[in-house]
């Protein structure tokens, strides 16, 4: 076991994947000498050379499209998109090519591309640096989407993503890059599937589902709720497409109450999908309508306002109160 930051854990996972498979190639802007703007690829170009850690021109569609070509040639590209809000120029290549080539070619062409995306807010950045675009990709068949919340998962799941023959969006919560945790580097990455959700905190009154940057916040909320006598079960989805609904369903059958929280905007978001799917699967076990605690349906605000937009501990607790039918900010309005 070693203690390392989130960013360092991804770096260690990338290093391990590159050591194990010479076909793994990293591509992105500023990932070479600089080590990426978040330093996640720090030192890798020095050790593996500029042909395996490729600094690219500043063109996201170009990066993604050439990664497709590299995959055709038998490589396993790991693409870094510098910030969430910069992914849109690559959207066409991701949705029309990366996601569909396996289907289009009846499985003849594999797209083992990992797309790393630092995402989410909370770091005081200007516009386009704090977005949560995951729902665009969970809505796109052919892609798998994951988000990691702690150094151990980051280390294991980046290797699982690279080893997968399906294309994967790997969302890294950028405000947690400096979060430290224990990482067991000897773990067998094939022992667990990447798709399984994880019960972070066991509880019996409310199921609180989240992923990525809000997992630590949700865990803190569960601690705060327990001081108030409420037992919250926190689930870290890890995989956003597909979602491990069996784990969520099992929990909701126990608690009868579901709160979903994410930074992304509410309407048409993952919370809606989770609420609908869980309602379909265990309607008769629910004691209350599922509750969503999310970012608002607004463009990501300037940084002085971002903590109004981002769900925090108190907003999550307010959501827990709603799910429990206890006095809450919307008391008297719900029906």
């Amino acid at each position, binding site marked *: 076991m070693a203690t390392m930051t989130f960013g360092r854990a991804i770096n260690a996972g990338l290093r391990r994947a590159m050591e194990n498979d010479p076909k793994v*190639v990293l591509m992105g802007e500023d990932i070479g000498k600089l080590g990426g703007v978040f330093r996640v690829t720090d030192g890798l170009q020095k050790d593996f050379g500029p*042909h395996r850690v*490729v600094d*690219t*021109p500043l*063109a996201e*569609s*170009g990066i*993604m*499209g*050439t*990664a*497709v*070509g*590299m*995959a*055709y*040639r*038998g*490589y396993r590209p790991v693409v870094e998109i510098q910030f969430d809000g910069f992914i849109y*120029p690559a959207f*066409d*290549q991701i949705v*029309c*090519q990366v996601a*569909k080539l*396996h*289907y*289009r*070619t*009846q*499985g*003849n*062409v*594999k797209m083992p591309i990992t797309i790393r995306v630092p995402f989410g807010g909370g770091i005081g950045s200007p516009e386009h640096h704090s977005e949560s675009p995951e729902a665009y990709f969970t809505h796109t*068949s*052919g892609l*798998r989407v994951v988000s990691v919340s702690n150094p151990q998962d980051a280390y294991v799941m980046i290797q699982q993503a690279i080893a*997968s*023959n*399906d294309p994967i969006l790997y969302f890294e919560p950028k405000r947690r890059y400096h979060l430290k945790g224990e990482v067991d580097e000897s773990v067998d990455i094939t022992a667990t599937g990447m*798709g399984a959700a994880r019960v972070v905190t066991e509880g019996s009154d409310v199921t609180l589902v989240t992923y990525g940057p809000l997992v630590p916040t949700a865990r803190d909320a569960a601690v705060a709720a327990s001081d108030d006598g409420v037992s919250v079960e926190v689930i870290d989805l890890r995989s956003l*497409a*597909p*979602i*491990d*609904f*069996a784990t969520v369903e099992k929990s909701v059958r126990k608690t009868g109450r579901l709160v979903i929280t994410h930074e992304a905007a509410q309407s048409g978001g993952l919370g809606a999908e989770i609420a609908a799917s869980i309602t379909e699967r265990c309607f008769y076990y629910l004691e209350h309508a599922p509750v969503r605690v999310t970012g608002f349906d607004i463009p990501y605000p300037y940084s002085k306002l971002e903590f109004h937009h981002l769900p925090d501990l108190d907003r999550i607790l307010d959501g827990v109160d709603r799910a429990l039918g206890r006095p809450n900010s919307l008391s008297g309005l719900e029906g």
Partner: protein
Amino acid sequence: MLLNNEADAAQDELVQLIAPNGERRHHPVYDRWVADVDGEALQALYRDMVVIRRIDAEATALQRQGELALWPPFLGQEAAQIGSARALREDDFVFSSYRESGVAYCRGVDLTDLMRVWRGNASAGWDPFAINMAPTQVIIGAQTLHATGYAMGILHDGADSVAVTYFGDGATSQGDVNEAMVFAASYQAPVIFFCQNNQWAISEPVRLQAHVPIARRAPGFGIPSVRVDGNDVLACLAVTREALDRARTGGGPTFIEAVTYRMGPHTTADDPTRYRDANELEDWAAKDPIARLAGLLDAEGLLPAEVSDSVQASADDVAARLREGCISMPEPAAQDVFKHVYSEPNSWLERQQDQYERYLASFESPVSDSSEEASR
């Protein structure tokens, strides 16, 4: 200093080795690239062009008869496709758009496979690795980046193969094509950008895409370019061979603008009489690629009746096999709709497939309304 100078004008000239009347034109640079092309080789190019024109005609007929959903004809572009594709080695890799059926023919595509997409039986007709050609690409220009990335992979591998990407004049307006040229130049990737400027992007004339000859753009990216008479199969072969040689020997990318004409509609769903002049069609008919080569062959006594009869017989045979393969294609199974979305199991899709199979099965045996299953 204005960049739009006389040197540019010289660069705009088309490389031409066979004049529209069939006369062999000599070229100080490009003659040597086709010095080995003897009478037999010319006859083979002629045969190829006649055969693919027959494929095009047969496919158009199949669409009119309701056997194909759609067909994008390449009538008039035979020389550009045959001349370039016949220059390639087996280990080169092609990334084309959807109009390069003639190129696919040269790569050795199975005739039935050529029809699958257009009959609606598949989203890609062939295994790309069986003929080293990616499937038809519908998103305009997207494939140019794939070719460039593939070429970057060739560089990593230390191989001397070349990636060749085909696209039209319309595609040159796309960001992807321009980004592909940036990447290709930066990494000196062994890729050939083969632009078939057929003058029309559905109804939009090339002047809407480009205010100067398209080939002029590439040098701005640091990529050498050449304009070639796209209706001259020998010239297309020569310029492609030169570009391949440059790529194989570490010289990086080349941009070729093959100036040709789309004699037919954009697809069988299009009606070009709404937007273009019949006179224009007549002008280009006079530059026909097959008639031109026939003229040269004839002048040299290389097109006796037995040769032209044999070529026609080959074309008819190919057309018959194409038709037979097309109409006898088996229908896909309902379950195929879920196949190959992922290469690994996916719980969401498995559930939907399971539910759809139950739904289909419900036509076979009535659904029990008491079980919990019925409400799933």
